[in-house]
């Protein structure tokens, strides 16, 4: 059905042409699901866009052939291509919010492909099909969704709408470019199940592009692994997972934190033998006023934290897992004193807890050099000469694995991983006893993620840190933590040592999270 032969893509917007995809080959049978895996910059999205016929940039040179049922997408007439797009080839994207037109109703957008490809169809029939399609992607109250605008729906609902709009003409090939990356794990799991069902029932072939190996493993029979524009390895998914041939694939798989029962973590011993708690949090409640629905309505309060209590012991890593909106970031703010309202007590047994944030782009002041940023905490505290400050900043750079030349760069000149190292360094300048890491590795590629986790663990040993490690990623938390808290809807629903929580979960929500993260029994055994 689909044959990509010797695809080469080259950018010409710089002085030196830059090739982003080299000699790419792919063959897909009808009804097949193929996973295309790679880290950012591997050329996987470019390839997907090329297959969908969406690369129309003039400054780009395309060589090779993309044959969809005999039609070459790269060279056929535009009208021919447009006839295929939306009818036989459909595509869904990573960000369902920005991928839907914000000012048009959802129903209109779902129907659009019908309006283009089935012009003879009348309005009622279109609407009937759209409603049926919306119901088919498991959206409740299809009629209401039909009339809504994208901003009125949740992220998961938007992605379902995208799928409905893509599937409305019954395409033979669905290209899904990171369709679950922006979603919560449990929603992610549901979308993957939905895609599997669509594939089974409608025999639609799916080209699934993702950076997430474990997700691809759940969905695909066949996998193609890409690295900087080239295919590294391709073949049967289970085969590649169990016996990767290439070094890069092996590294990718190794970078996924595995959940093996025998954790060789020396920290867990010191945690047990630790001299009492560093932080006691009890009965934290906090609510935020919502917007009034009527002019004189009393403002309703939405409870974000509903009585949260826990403690952190000296030298331990405490994992905090929860999905977006569960209140975990608010909890971090309360602990740090950045959020002052609300009830409950926070007792610190150490001065200066510090924080590492998720987005390494937003957490470094863009108008200051790295050296300035590292020195700033010392400058505020005072009592250091400029030379001392400089020396300590350079020493910290070395500690987080960066060269001294980085001190004179601006954050925008650094890569994501380097920035996150700088963030960690800045947080450790005042030598805190407690570090809070809020989704600190979520924005990074798996291999970089692995390095940062390694860095955090070694710094912890070296400086005797305790870490509150907040994340949505069950696997990452497993790798980092001694104890875990599972948080849902402003409450801690389960807590205990990692072994307890991961291998003998009590609460149904914990079980759901584990299932969504595809933590399989064979790994644990």
């Amino acid at each position: 059905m689909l044959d990509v032969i010797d695809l080469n893509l080259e950018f010409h917007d710089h002085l030196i042409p830059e090739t982003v995809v080299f000699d790419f080959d792919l063959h897909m049978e009808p009804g097949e699901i193929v996973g295309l895996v790679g880290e950012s910059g591997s050329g996987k999205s470019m390839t997907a866009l090329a297959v969908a016929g969406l690369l129309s940039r003039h400054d780009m040179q395309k060589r090779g052939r993309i044959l969809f049922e005999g039609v070459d997408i790269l060279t056929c007439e535009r009208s021919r291509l447009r006839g295929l797009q939306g009818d036989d080839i459909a595509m869904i994207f990573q960000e369902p919010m920005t991928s839907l037109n914000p000012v048009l109703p959802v129903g209109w957008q779902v129907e659009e492909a019908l309006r283009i490809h089935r012009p003879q169809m009348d309005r009622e029939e279109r609407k009937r099909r759209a409603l049926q399609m919306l119901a088919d992607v498991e959206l409740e109250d299809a009629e209401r969704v039909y009339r809504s605008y994208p901003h009125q729906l949740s992220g998961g609902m938007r992605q379902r709408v995208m799928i409905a709009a893509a599937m409305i003409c019954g395409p033979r090939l669905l290209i899904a470019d990171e369709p679950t990356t922006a979603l919560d794990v449990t929603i992610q799991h549901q979308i993957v199940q939905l895609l599997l069902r669509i594939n089974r029932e409608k025999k639609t072939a799916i080209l699934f592009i993702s950076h997430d190996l474990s997700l691809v493993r759940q969905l695909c029979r066949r996998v193609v692994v890409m690295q900087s524009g080239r295919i590294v390895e391709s073949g049967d998914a289970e085969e590649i997972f169990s016996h990767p041939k290439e070094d890069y694939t092996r590294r990718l798989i190794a970078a996924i934190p595995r959940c093996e029962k025998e954790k060789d973590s020396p920290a867990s011993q010191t945690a047990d033998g630790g001299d009492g708690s560093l932080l006691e949090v009890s009965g934290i409640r906090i609510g935020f006023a919502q917007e009034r629905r009527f002019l004189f309505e009393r403002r309703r309060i939405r409870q974000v934290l509903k009585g949260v209590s826990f403690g952190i012991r000296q030298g331990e890593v405490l994992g905090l897992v929860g999905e977006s909106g569960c209140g975990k970031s608010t909890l971090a703010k309360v602990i740090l004193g950045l959020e002052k309202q609300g009830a409950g007590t926070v007792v610190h047994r150490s001065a200066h807890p510090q924080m590492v944030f998720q987005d390494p782009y937003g957490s470094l002041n863009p108008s200051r050099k790295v050296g300035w940023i590292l020195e700033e905490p010392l400058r505020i505290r005072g009592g250091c000469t400029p030379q001392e400050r400089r020396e300590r900043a350079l020493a910290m750079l070395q500690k987080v694995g960066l060269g001294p030349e980085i001190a004179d760069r601006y954050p925008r000149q650094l890569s994501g991983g380097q920035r996150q190292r700088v963030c960690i360094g800045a947080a450790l300048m005042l030598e805190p006893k407690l570090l809070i890491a809020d989704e600190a590795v979520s924005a990074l590629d798996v291999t970089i993620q692995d390095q940062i986790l390694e860095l955090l663990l070694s710094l912890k040993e070296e400086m005797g840190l305790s870490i509150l490690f907040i994340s949505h990623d069950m696997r990452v938390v497993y790798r980092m933590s001694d104890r875990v808290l599972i948080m849902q809807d402003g409450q801690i629903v389960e807590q205990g040592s990692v072994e307890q929580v991961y291998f003998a979960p009590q609460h149904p929500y914990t079980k759901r999270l584990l299932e969504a993260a595809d933590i399989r029994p064979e790994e644990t055994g």
Partner: protein
Amino acid sequence: MKYKKNRNFVTGAALTGVMLLFVLIGAVWTPYDPEAMDRTAKLAGVSFSHLMGCDNFGRDIFSRVLKGSGTTLLTAVGTVGIGTLCGVIVGAFTGYFGGAVDEIFMRINDVLFAFPSILLGLVVISLLGSGNFNVVIALGIAFIPSFARIVRSEFIRCKNMDYVRSARLAGAGHLRIMFVHILPNTVTVLLSSVMIGFNNAVLAEAGMSYLGIGTQPPHASLGRMLSDAQTYLLSSPGYALFPGIVLIWMVLGFSLLAEGLKEG
């Protein structure tokens, strides 16, 4: 420098540079006394002795344009100075702290924003009386809301960034966060709105002196010259065209600079 390739910035800088040179020359030397009347040269055309001709009193237009553009530019500097200074302070505090004070300020700001700056200037002038100094005060006040609004929205954008949180965790006080951490990040936006401010201030000053408020005769001002020239439009079009072209030159320079800064 990253602005090198920026065509708008380069053109704008060149135009403004030439303009500044022109004004500087006018400040120290003019070919004739701009206020000296020469009865024999009434409405004289363009010649080597009078590069832009003479007006209806026989005054040398070139000299008057030199002096007049200086006045306009000086007024603009004063106006933008007042507007930026007050605007940054008001915008920084309201944007950073928010709350009830912010609400009240924004309400008043909205109201002032609804007034065209020239009109606001006219009101202030009608209350204070005309004169150059009063024009600067009047326009300066009229310009505060737009600056305050821009600075406020920049501060709102920045105050929830993680780097501000990090600074707070490191123990920085509010003033330090506002002026050491956030302010440098607003510079690009601020600079380009200062240029737009110059652009608007020049237009407003010219408009007011065209209406006969502001610079009083016999002192030269571009707007006043345009209004006087209208009577002699057909017989000596140069009388209106030269001051007009200089005015456009000035405004164009600033607007291109603003444009270039936005891109850079």
